[in-house]
């Protein structure tokens, strides 16, 4: 079946995430990695390099322990582990965005412990509401742009950047349509399939990914809409790892219809305007992404956003997927839970780790939650 073949293609990409990057490197193209999830890939692309997401590993972590304490989150420990193991030797460069204290300190460790030729920070403003943030961010993007030019030896012309932005906007549009489709036709592809498509975008050639998503949209559009009685859920947190969690949710009678995850909706974010000053437009996109633990808006806070997200998606419950040791998420948790309770939305917090999560325990807790919500819980 065509749909299954297409989904298999995305699955294969996620199973061997750096295949395309390695191929590009072998073909002589520069490859620049980025840590989740705010780095402006358009700039990397316009500088002639291939951008690739570095998203941790579910394999055991050993080497990183000599450099980074075990009470750093398993996402960042996993990224460092991959670097130390040589898995990322294909990289010509890596950009680490400062979203938290761990990413802020990781860049120094990376420089010391690894030989990646080009290592950079993406120093986003951590307040998003005041005029100073935008002025500063434009300057920061200009700095990043010129460092990328130096790394690749290719100038980022306005024309090239505009073209890159268009490719990325098209990709975001395709993924947004897939989200919308899944939200109204939950029975056609699984939640895990949806998120696998999003994740695959971080490793693939963007134009190729867009074409595949469009093909998928065409195919699933032909399927007869199915009446789906499952419980509609929203996810909030960092990453949907380990991936089995998504299957578990469906097995227990739920389906995911919205999220604010780094490897989900936050990756999409708003489009970039191609008509005016492009760096300013990239800054605007960054400042208008959905709120998350790393930096919140004081005008329209994250709790309000999440309640609206649940209601907008007609979801019945919220699952907080929090990585152990993720401070930003934990600081927000009490008030997010309170907002859910006040809005009459049942919620549960699951603490996860790459590689180490005890799936049995998660399943028991999820099952109780689903039963409480009236699902089959079996």
């Amino acid at each position, binding site marked *: 079946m065509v749909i299954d073949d297409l989904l298999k293609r995305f699955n294969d990409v996620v199973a061997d995430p750096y295949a395309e990057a390695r191929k590009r490197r072998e073909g002589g193209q520069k490859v620049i990695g980025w840590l989740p999830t705010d780095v402006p890939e358009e700039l990397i692309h316009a500088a002639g390099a291939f951008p690739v997401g570095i998203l941790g590993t579910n394999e055991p972590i050993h080497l990183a322990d000599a450099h980074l304490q075990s009470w750093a989150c398993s996402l960042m420990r996993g990224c460092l582990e991959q670097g130390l193991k040589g898995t990322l030797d294909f990289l010509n460069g890596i950009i680490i965005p400062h979203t938290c204290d761990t990413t802020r300190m990781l860049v120094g460790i990376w420089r010391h412990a690894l030989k990646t030729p080009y290592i950079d920070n993406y120093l986003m403003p951590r307040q998003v509401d005041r005029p100073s943030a935008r002025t500063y961010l434009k300057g920061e993007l200009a700095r990043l742009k010129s460092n990328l030019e130096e790394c690749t030896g290719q100038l980022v012309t306005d024309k090239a950047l505009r073209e890159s932005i268009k490719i990325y906007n098209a990709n975001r549009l395709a993924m947004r349509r897939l989200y919308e489709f899944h939200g109204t036709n939950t029975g056609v592809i699984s939640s895990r399939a949806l998120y696998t498509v999003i994740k695959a975008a971080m490793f693939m050639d963007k134009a190729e990914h867009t074409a595949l998503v469009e093909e998928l949209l065409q195919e699933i559009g032909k399927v007869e809409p199915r009446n789906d009685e499952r419980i509609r859920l929203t996810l909030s947190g960092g990453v949907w790892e380990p991936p089995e969690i998504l299957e578990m949710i469906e097995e227990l009678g739920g389906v995911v219809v919205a999220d604010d995850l780094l490897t989900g909706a936050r990756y999409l974010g708003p489009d970039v305007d191609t008509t005016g000053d492009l760096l300013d437009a990239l800054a605007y996109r960054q400042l208008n992404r959905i709120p998350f633990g790393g930096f919140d808006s004081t005008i329209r806070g994250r709790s309000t956003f999440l309640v609206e997200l649940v209601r907008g998606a007609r979801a019945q419950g919220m699952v907080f997927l929090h990585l152990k040791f993720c401070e930003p998420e*934990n600081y927000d948790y009490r008030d997010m839970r309170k907002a859910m309770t006040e809005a009459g939305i049942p919620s549960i917090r699951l603490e996860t780790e790459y590689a180490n999560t005890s799936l049995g325990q998660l399943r028991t807790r999820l099952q109780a939650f689903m039963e409480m919500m009236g699902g089959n819980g079996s």
Partner: protein
Amino acid sequence: MSAPFKTAGLLKDLMAQYYAKGEENRKLGIPVAWVTAVFPVEIIYAMDIFPYYPENFGALAAARKVADKLSEYGEQQGYYNDLCGYARCGIGDTYADEHPVGKILPPDLLVCCNTQCGSLPKWFEAAGRYHQAPYFLLDSPLIEGEVSSLGKAYFVEQLWEMVDFLEKTTGNKFDLNRLTEVLKLASEATRLWNDCLDMAALKPAPFGFFDACFHMAPIVTWRGTQVAVDYYKALKEELDERVAKGVTAIPNERFKIYFDHIPVWPRLRWFSDLFADHDALVVASQYTHSWAHKFDLSRPMESLAEVYTEQFVNRGFEYRIKLKMEFMERYNCDGFVLFSNRSCKPNSFGLYDKRQVIAERTGKPGVVFEADMSDQRFFSAGQIQTRLEAFFEQLEQNSRRGKT
């Protein structure tokens, strides 16, 4: 630790007065602003706002060994024990039925600078929501390598945004001349504080890091006021007196140690005794030097931006290594001890590699130990003692080698 200081009594009185003043001031119409430790508090003083330091509350609770208890109240609310111990104490106290170190002072407004870490903004955000008080973040991007004009311009622009925020929130007016006066007092106090810290370089020294931890409250809290100036004048006099009389911090000082970063508050005496038992005095830490800076009064806002953003708390890996090595040289240290503090990711992540680099570059022994600055549930005395004993043995070996 050293024999009791005369100034210690003075400090106790001053701190008690300060804590009492918060609520009194509020009744008089003086707003209470929560501020962070490495923050341009000079602007707050210049605008006649009362600054309150929730971090001090955390340190106090930790030193009195009640951090774990207060933290549990926070944990029950969903602020789990992987978070910063100070934040858990402060948040916990808000929900607690008991207040063993007094109640944390509720804010009328909150102003936070994030050079120290990302925990403070999240704690302040949460407190702002709880107390329904306006919150302002003074954002400072990391300076990983060279100081950049971009980051500085951003910070200066935000200082003006903050002045605007403070004027609107409190109704108080900002005046540059008044700020200059405050900066003059702050410079005077920080100079005196630095002079006191430098006394630890004498051998034997009248004063060490663990003493400095006790005497640092005024420089954190009252820099920019006459109180801090008077306090450090008194402390400096007392230290000079001690030197004249031959009073030393520990009985038989043979080794000088650099310590990084903050003390394990509930075990301060345990550590200082352990060091003293091995004739070792901890003489310096980047921590107590966080407030040893100087302002340029001719350009107040730029100078504030430089002082507060170019500090080590906002610097990268290499800068921090160099700074530690500079302290080791200035204070003639024989070795270094690095505290991997579960409560403080920014000061802890990277220490494993830094230990190796500093040992290579200086040829001096160094050790990393694991604990939490406030929470004794993460304290394993046996493990730490074993590590430190091995370190002391290296010091002895080096000393014997030096003599032969």
